[in-house]
C-alpha cells in the first residue's frame, strides 16, 4: 500500500519548550488512522506542522513521496492535504455555498478572470454540481444558501468537512470533530464520516478524545504525549496498552 502522508523526525519548539519530539508517522492511501493523546500532547501542533502553519525545526513532511517541508500552506493544501479545525474556522459573512465554491475554485486557478466576466461572479455550473454532491453526501442539502452564522455547531463542523472535500484531498486531518457536540450528534457524525470516507476513499488522520469514535472509525492509532510518540499499532491494542493508561492517568511516562 502506498504512503500518502508521512512525517519523519518532526520536532517543534515553542520558545525552548519541546512541543514535538522527533515524531515519525505514516498514513497509507485510504487508511483511517487515529492520533490520540491527552490535552497539550501536541496533536494540533503536529497538524499545524504537517500543513505548514508552523515551521518545523527538524524533520520532514512528505506527501505522496514528495518532500513538502518548505512549501507554504496553500501549496500543501492544493497538493492534497485537507483539514478541519479544533476551534471551528468558517468564513464570516458567507453562505454555505460560498465556502464550497471558493474551496473548489482555489484548487483550479486557471482563467479565473475570464470565468468571472462570463458568469458575472456567480458560481459556475460545475461548481454548483460539485457542491451539491458534497452537500448531499454530508446531509446538508437545503442549507446551501444559509449564511454560516445561522448554522449549528454540528452543521458547522460538517461544513468544514464539506469545504475540505471540495479540494479533493488525498488525506484529511480531522482535529476533534466531536468537540462541542452531544452524544447523538457525535454518533451521527461518526456515521457520516464512515460513509463519506468509503465513498471518496481519502485517507484520514483523526485527532479525537471520544474513545468510542476513535475505536469505531480508525484501524490503526498513534499515541502522543508531551510531544513523544509513545506507541502505535492497531487501535484496540493501543487503547489497551500500559502507555495509554499511563498517559491518561498522568503517572510518570513509561518510555
Amino acid at each position: 500500500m502506498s504512503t500518502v502522508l508521512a512525517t519523519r523526525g518532526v520536532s517543534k519548539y515553542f520558545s525552548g519548550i519541546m512541543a514535538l519530539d522527533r515524531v515519525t508517522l505514516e498514513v497509507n492511501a485510504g487508511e483511517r488512522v487515529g492520533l490520540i493523546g491527552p490535552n497539550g500532547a501536541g496533536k494540533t501542533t503536529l497538524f499545524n506542522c504537517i500543513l505548514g502553519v508552523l515551521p518545523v525545526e527538524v524533520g520532514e513532511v512528505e506527501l505522496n513521496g514528495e518532500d513538502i517541508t518548505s512549501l507554504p500552506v496553500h501549496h500543501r493544501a492544493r497538493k492534497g492535504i485537507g483539514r478541519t479545525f479544533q476551534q471551528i474556522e468558517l468564513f464570516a459573512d458567507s453562505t454555505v455555498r460560498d465556502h464550497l465554491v471558493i474551496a473548489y475554485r482555489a484548487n483550479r486557478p486557471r482563467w479565473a478572470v475570464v470565468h468571472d466576466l462570463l458568469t458575472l461572479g456567480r458560481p459556475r455550473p460545475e461548481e454548483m454540481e460539485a457542491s451539491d454532491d458534497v452537500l448531499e453526501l454530508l446531509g446538508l442539502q437545503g442549507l446551501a444558501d444559509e449564511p454560516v452564522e445561522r448554522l449549528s455547531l454540528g452543521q458547522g463542523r460538517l461544513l468544514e468537512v464539506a469545504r475540505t472535500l471540495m479540494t479533493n484531498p488525498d488525506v484529511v486531518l480531522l482535529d476533534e470533530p466531536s468537540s462541542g457536540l452531544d452524544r447523538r450528534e457525535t454518533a451521527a457524525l461518526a456515521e457520516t464520516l464512515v460513509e463519506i470516507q468509503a465513498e471518496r476513499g481519502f485517507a484520514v488522520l483523526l485527532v479525537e478524545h471520544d474513545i468510542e469514535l476513535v475505536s469505531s472509525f480508525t484501524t490503526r492509532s498513534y499515541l502522543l504525549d508531551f510531544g513523544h510518540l509513545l506507541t502505535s499499532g492497531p487501535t484496540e491494542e493501543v487503547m489497551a496498552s500500559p502507555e495509554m493508561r499511563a498517559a491518561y492517568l498522568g503517572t510518570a511516562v513509561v518510555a
Partner: protein
Amino acid sequence: MILAVSVVTDFFQAVLQGVPPGTVYALVAIGFVLTYKTSGVFNFAFGAQAFASMVLFHKAADEWGWGTVPAAILSVLIFAPLLGFLLEWAVFRHLRTAPPLSTLVVSLGLTVAIPSLVTILLDFSPKSGSSPHGVVPDGRTVRYDPFGVYPFSRDELVATIVAIVAVLGLAALFRFTPVGLMMKAVVESPRMTELNGISADRVSAGAWALSSFFAGLAGVLIAPRFTTFSANEYFNIMVIAIAAAAVGKLVSLPWAFGGGLGLGVVIALVSTFLPRWTDEFAWLKPVQENVLPSIPFVVLFGVIVFVPGLRKAIGSSDPLAGVDPPRQNVASVITSAGWMFLALKAVLLLGAVAVVYTQADRTWTLLVTQAVAMGIIFLSITIITGLAGQISLCQGAFAAIGAFAVYQLGEVRGMSVLVAVVIGGAIAAAVAAALSLTLRQLTGIWVAIATLAFAFFFDAVLVKQSWIGGDSLARSRIPRPVIGTIDFQDDSNFLLLAVIVLAVCALGVYLFSRGTTGRKLRALGGSEIAARSVGISPSRARVAAFALSGFLAAVGGGMLVIGQGSVNYGTSFVPFLALFWLIVVVTFGVRQPSGAIVAAAFFILFESVFLKGEIFGWILRGEDNIPSFFPLAPDWRYILFGLGTIQYARHPEGVLAMSAAKRRARSERRAADKVVVDSAAELGTPA
C-alpha cells in the same frame, strides 16, 4: 592627517548635534510603546497629543502672560496626563475587544480631530511670522560648547537634560513604586496581570496618562526646532518615533529609547557627511537634496521589511495570547442588496447629476465634478480596506501618481489626457503591486505603517523629482480632453464624462468583489488560516487587491486634476489628507461602493454646503438669510469626521449600512411581535 582629524571632529560634531533631537524622538517613542503595550492601541494620535500640549503652552505663555514655568506645568504636568486619561476612559477602554484595525482607524480619527479641536477651543491663532519657542529665554541664541566641537543651544540642552531625566524617572517609577511595578507587569504581559487580579482598567488608564505626559513633554521640548505651529510637523515626529519604536518591535522600552537616539544621530551624521561625498560622486546630488527628510521613512520601511519575525513578535510573545476574548464579529453587511435596490441608488445618483447638469452654475458643476472624481479615488479604499481588510495610508500617493502622469504625459508630452489617465492607472497599479509584494508577509498594523512610510517617502522625495513633480507653474495648465466632436472644455460635458468613468469603476469594483479574487479576499478576511488550508494564496489575492486599488486611485487622481485644470499636490494629495480620506470612507461604509460615493460627495461638498451655511441660503431662499455664525472654520470637518470614527469602531459597518441594519432590525422585530401575537391568539389568551 589633517583630513582625518577634521573627519573625526565632524563625526563628533554630528553625533553631538544628533543627541538633542534624538532624546526627544526617544521620548515620543517611549510614550508610544507604553500605550501600545498596555492597551494594544497603536496610537497614531500621539503626535496630535504632543501638538495639543504645545499649543496650550504657547497660549498660556504668550497670550495669557503666564510665564513659561506655570505654562509648562499647566500644559505638560496637568493637561497632557488628563488628555491621556480622557482618551482611555472615553474611547479606548470601550474598544478592548474591537478588531485591531478599528482601533487603528479611531486613532487616525483622533489624529485629525485633536489638533483642530484644540486650535478652535483655545482660539489659537499665532501671529504670522512668529515661531514656537522653548521653555527658557533666548533658547535659540545662547549657546554652550562643553566639548569644543558643537555648541549646544540653550533649548537643545534643556531638551536633552529634561528628556534624560524623564526617562530615568520612568525607569525609577517602574523599579521602585507599586504603581510602576504594576504597570511594568502589564507592559510585560497584560493577561497574566489580569489573571493575578490587578485591574487592567486602572493600570491602563494610568499608562495612558503617563504616556500622554511623555507626549506633552516631547511636544513642548521639540517646539523650538520648528519654524511654524503646524500639526503636520508633529505628525512627522510621530512617524520618526514609530520608526524608533519599530526597532524594538514596538514592545521594548530600552530599544525604543536607543532607536530614538540612534535615529537622531544617524540623521545628523548623514546631513554632515552626505554633502561631502556628493562633491566626489555627482550622482549622489539629487539623492542628497531629498535624503534628509526621508531618513525616518526609509528606516521605518527598512525595519518593517527586513527585520525578521516582526510579524510574529506580538502574538507569540504572550503565552496567553490565545485566551483573549473572541474578536467581535463584524456584522454581516454585504447583504445581497438586490437589483432593485441598486437600480434605485443608480436612479437617485443619475437624478442628482441631471439636476446639477441642467441647473448648477459653473462653481457648483466643478465642485460636483470633483466629488465624482473623488468617488473614484474612494472606491480604491473600498477595495483595499473594505474587501481586502488592509489599511493603506498611501492612497494619496497613488492618486498623485495618476495626477502627475496626466501632467507629465498630457501636458509635457502632449499626449491625450485620457490615455494618460489610463497609463497613470497602470503605473500606480504596478507600484502598488510591487509595494504589496515587498510587504507580503505582513498584515494588519504593519501594512498600515509601511504604507504610511511609503506615503511620506513619496511626499518628501519623489514629488520633488522633476520627472515626477515637474515645475509648479506648468502644473496648472492641464488640458481637457476632446473626443471626436465633443469638447470637454465644457464643464457640464466633462461632468458627464467623469460620471461615466465613475460608473465604470464602480461596476468594476462590484464585479471584482463578486469574482474569484473577491471571494478569496472575503474568505481570507473570514478566517485566514482556513482560507490558506483550502489552497488560497493570501499574498496573491492581496497583491491583486492592491494593484486594483492603486489603479482606481490613480484614475480618480487623474480625473480630479483634469477637472480642476491643475495639479494641486499640496491641497489634494498630501499624506495627511489621504489619512482623512480613509476616515471619511470608513464613516460612510467601507464595504459597499455606494459608501465610497456618498463619502466623496460629503468630503467635497461638506465645506460649501454645511460649513459655509449655503444650505440655509437655499432653505431660507437667499444668501442674506444665512445665519451669521457661518461660515464655520473648515477645521470642523476634521473634528466631526475624526470623532466620527469612534462611532465607527462601535458600528464597523458604517453609517449607511447601520441605518439599513436598523431598518431591518425594526421590521424583523415587528414580524416577531406579530408571531407572538398570532400564537397568543391561537392559544386563546388575550395578547
